[in-house]
């Protein structure tokens, strides 16, 4: 007789696998995010040129632009995690099949892996196209991973909320922006430090704290969102 | 009454917005501003009282209008 824990883990894993399988079949979110990110990159590069060669721009402006691109890419692709379930009426099956916390973790890991995959594509392209030299690449990776996690976690949680309402995609942006703003500010600051070669500073522990808080808040609140 | 030594354009509120106001005595006496504030507050207070009376009436069963 399988233990409750292994059932729970199995559920979460099943949700994760199912979402990736659907995603790889349709490639809807991947396409949306990648297309959006690449388009923005092209426009940025065409408009600014290799702005990374300008030291002041490199430190002050380019980190912020990178995270804005990632923000909008996340908004383009991640809400689908829940909206799709509502629209194709598979949400009911999910409610029956899986405990809410397992469902949330499955969706969360899916969202994080999706976003980290996109970052792996976008970040090197961005650095190359904008000719941006990074003094501490290790810190940049840390910023991308911890910032990416927070971005995905926050987006998945808000997506769950927005999926219960009408006008879902516009509502997502309205709800997500204030929630994600601290994350973005922290990630931008950390990225700036990476580019300039400064120490990580207080931004790193605060960013990790944000990631932890959103995860815990999501685990505690998601059952109320999902179940009546 | 103090006399104004310079002539300025625009109404008082407009000047405040433009940052030209703020000198002590030019304000025409704090008493004037205090009186205006008091009137605004009293008006708000009476308004809230009337709303409360109306609500209490509806709660007590005067549901038909």
């Amino acid at each position, binding site marked *: 007789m399988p233990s409750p824990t292994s059932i729970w883990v199995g559920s979460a894993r099943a949700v994760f696998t199912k979402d990736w399988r659907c995603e790889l079949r349709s490639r809807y979110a991947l396409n949306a995010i990648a297309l959006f990110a690449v388009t923005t990159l092209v426009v940025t590069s065409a408009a600014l040129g290799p702005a990374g060669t300008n030291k002041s721009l490199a430190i002050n402006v380019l980190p912020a632009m990178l995270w804005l691109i990632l923000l909008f890419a996340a908004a383009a692709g991640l809400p689908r995690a829940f909206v799709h379930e509502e629209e194709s009426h598979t949400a009911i099956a999910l409610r029956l099949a899986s405990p809410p916390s397992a469902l949330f973790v499955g969706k969360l890991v899916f969202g994080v892996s999706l976003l980290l995959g996109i970052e792996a594509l976008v970040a090197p392209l961005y650095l190359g196209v904008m000719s941006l030299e990074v003094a501490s690449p290790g810190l940049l990776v840390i910023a991308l991973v911890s910032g990416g996690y927070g971005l995905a976690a926050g987006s998945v*949680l*808000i997506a769950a*909320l927005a999926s*219960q*309402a*009408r*006008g879902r995609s516009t*509502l997502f942006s*309205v*709800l997500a*922006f*204030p*929630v994600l*703003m*601290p994350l973005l*500010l*922290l990630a931008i*600051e950390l990225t700036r430090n990476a580019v300039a070669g400064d120490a990580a500073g*207080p*931004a790193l522990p*605060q960013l990790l*704290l*944000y990631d932890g*808080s*959103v995860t815990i*808040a999501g685990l505690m*609140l998601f059952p*109320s*969102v999902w179940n*009546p | 009454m103090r006399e104004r030594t310079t002539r300025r354009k625009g109404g008082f509120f407009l000047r*405040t*917005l433009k*940052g030209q*106001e*703020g*000198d*002590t005595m030019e*304000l025409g006496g*704090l*008493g004037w*501003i*205090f009186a205006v*504030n*008091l009137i605004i*507050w*009293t008006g708000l*207070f009476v308004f*809230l*009282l009337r*709303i*409360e009376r109306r*609500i209490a009436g*509806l*709660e007590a069963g005067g*549901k038909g209008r």
Partner: protein
Amino acid sequence: MTRTISLGLRAALWLVMSLCIWGAFFYAWSDPAFIGQSSRILFFHVPMAWTSFVAYFAAAVWSGRYLWGGRQPRHDRAAAAAVECGVLFGVLATVTGALWARIEWGAFWNWDPRQTSIVVVLLFYGAYLALRSAMADREIRARISSVYALIALVVTPFFYFIVPRITDSLHPEPVINAERKLDVDPRMFQVLIASALTYTILFFWIHNLRARTQALADAREDDPS
């Protein structure tokens, strides 16, 4: 009998607020570090901002009570009313703050920590109200918006750490902290505290009226007879 007490309490509120207004203009002195009498606007601005933060916190508390205190509709009504009243005080605080900033520093907006934090609160308020308007079913609306209010509460403290650092890098010159200067003078401090308390009581009165109105509207919707 209770009617008399209740009327007496309200009359007392009128009196106390009038005293605070009087205190703002005649009891406290105008801070000489600021232009003319302009520091007096802080006796209104600071309590309004304080009250909108109180409303924010109250909305989250009522949301929590709704979710985990038996899903009682009155808690949800109280949360929503708190947000609406919070918007009222928040907008007033922003406007008075911007006016004062214009007089003091020549610009309506500086993104200094205080201005930024009130904007953040207003953003969350706006998102909360937008969320509510997108759901017609009362129970779903109550549940989902309660969750959002709690998420907002979790996330907001991060702004208090972050924003001062960012504005430091944007504005290297020290921004005059008005409250700290005013605290030094006991009269100003007294008027500030008294006003803050009075505005909070006023908030709870207005909030009570709003929540009761919504209760009546809901009852009429349920039973139009």
